[in-house]
C-alpha cells in the first residue's frame, strides 16, 4: 500500500484512513438519502440527512483528534485535516438543502387541504426534473471521490479519476444554467418563497464544486507523499 511508506508502526494512521473512508461513504449515503427523499417526497428520508450530517461531524472530530494525537508525519497533517474539512462542508450543504426543501411548503393561497396528503412541499415543477438530475449526479460525484481516495491509497495514477470528477462538475454546472434560465420564468409571490428556492438550488449545485476541491486536495496529498 502506498501509505505504508509513511506510516509509523502503530495503528493510528490505519484508524485515520478507515475513518476517512467511512466519512466519504457516509457522504455518499447522505447524498443518496437526500436524492431518494426528494424523489419520493419523503419527509422522513429528508430528516435522516440531518442525522447523517451529525454522524459525519462526529467522524470528522475523531479523525482530527487522531491526527493531532500523532498519526502521520507532521508535514502531512494539515493537508489531511483540510481534506476532511472540505468533505465536511459537503455534509453541511446537503443538510442545508434538506432543511430548505422542508421549507418549501405549498403557498397559503393554494388549497393546502387538497395538497396535504400527497404533496405538502416541493420544488417548482419546471425545474423539478433538473433538480432531481443534480441530486443524482451528486451521488455519482461522491462515489467518484471515494474511488479517487481508494486509488490514492494504492498509489495509482489519479489523473483519470480527477478528470471524471471535473466532467461531473461541468455537467452539473450546465444543468445549473438550465435551471437558472427556467427559474426566472416562475412567478414568485413573496421574497422568502423566492429566497428559499434560490438557496436550495445554490446548495444542491454547489456540492460538485466542493467535491472538486476535495479531489484537488487528494491530488495534493498524493503528490506531497512522493
Amino acid at each position: 500500500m502506498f501509505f505504508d511508506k509513511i506510516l509509523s508502526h502503530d495503528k493510528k494512521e490505519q484508524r485515520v484512513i478507515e475513518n476517512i473512508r467511512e466519512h466519504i461513504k457516509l457522504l455518499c449515503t447522505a447524498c443518496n438519502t437526500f436524492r431518494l427523499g426528494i424523489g419520493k417526497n419523503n419527509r422522513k428520508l429528508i430528516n435522516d440527512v440531518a442525522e447523517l450530517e451529525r454522524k459525519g461531524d462526529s467522524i470528522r472530530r475523531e479523525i482530527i483528534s487522531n491526527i493531532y494525537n500523532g498519526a502521520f508525519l507532521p508535514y502531512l497533517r494539515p493537508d489531511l485535516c483540510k481534506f476532511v474539512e472540505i468533505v465536511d462542508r459537503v455534509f453541511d450543504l446537503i443538510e442545508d438543502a434538506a432543511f430548505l426543501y422542508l421549507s418549501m411548503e405549498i403557498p397559503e393561497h393554494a388549497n393546502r387541504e387538497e395538497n396535504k396528503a400527497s404533496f405538502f412541499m416541493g420544488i417548482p415543477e419546471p425545474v423539478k426534473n433538473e433538480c432531481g438530475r443534480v441530486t443524482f449526479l451528486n451521488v455519482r460525484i461522491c462515489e467518484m471521490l471515494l474511488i479517487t481516495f481508494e486509488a490514492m491509497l494504492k498509489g495509482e495514477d489519479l489523473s483519470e479519476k480527477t478528470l471524471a470528477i471535473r466532467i461531473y462538475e461541468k455537467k452539473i454546472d450546465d444543468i445549473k444554467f438550465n435551471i437558472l434560465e427556467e427559474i426566472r420564468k416562475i412567478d414568485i409571490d413573496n421574497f422568502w418563497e423566492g429566497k428559499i428556492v434560490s438557496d436550495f438550488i445554490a446548495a444542491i449545485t454547489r456540492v460538485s464544486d466542493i467535491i472538486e476541491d476535495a479531489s484537488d486536495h487528494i491530488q495534493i496529498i498524493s503528490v506531497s507523499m512522493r
Partner: protein
Amino acid sequence: MKVQEFMTTNIKFVDAEESAYDAIEKMVDRRIRSLVVRFNKKNIEHGVITARDVVFKVLAKGLDPKKIRVSDIASKPILSIEQSMSIKEAAALMERSNIARIFVEKSKNIIGVISMVDLMDASLIMRARGENVF
C-alpha cells in the same frame, strides 16, 4: 450507464415553417449547434437542423438565410432512443448511422440529446469507475 444520466436537456425547438435565419439566431443566442424541428403543430413528427446544415446548405452556397425555410434544409426523421437505453447502445447506433448526436425520448416526447462530447465524457467516467466502456 443509462443515457438519461448523461444526456443534455438543453434542447430548443424551431418550427419547420420558420426561416433558416430564425434558426441561426436561436443557435447563436443559446450557443447550441442543433435545433429540433417541429413539422406539425401536434409535435409528433420531428426533424433536426444543425450548424452544419446552415453552413453547407445555405451560407456556403451564398443563399439568403431569410429566404430559406427550415424545412428545406432540415433532416427528417430524427434518430431517437429511449432514456432507459445504455450509453453503449447509443454509441453503437451513432456509429452505425454515422451521426454526431442522437435524441432521447420519453413517451414519444423529445427530452434530451446525446452528443459525441457527451459520449466521450460518459466513456471517461466509466473508465475511471473501472467499468467496461464499449
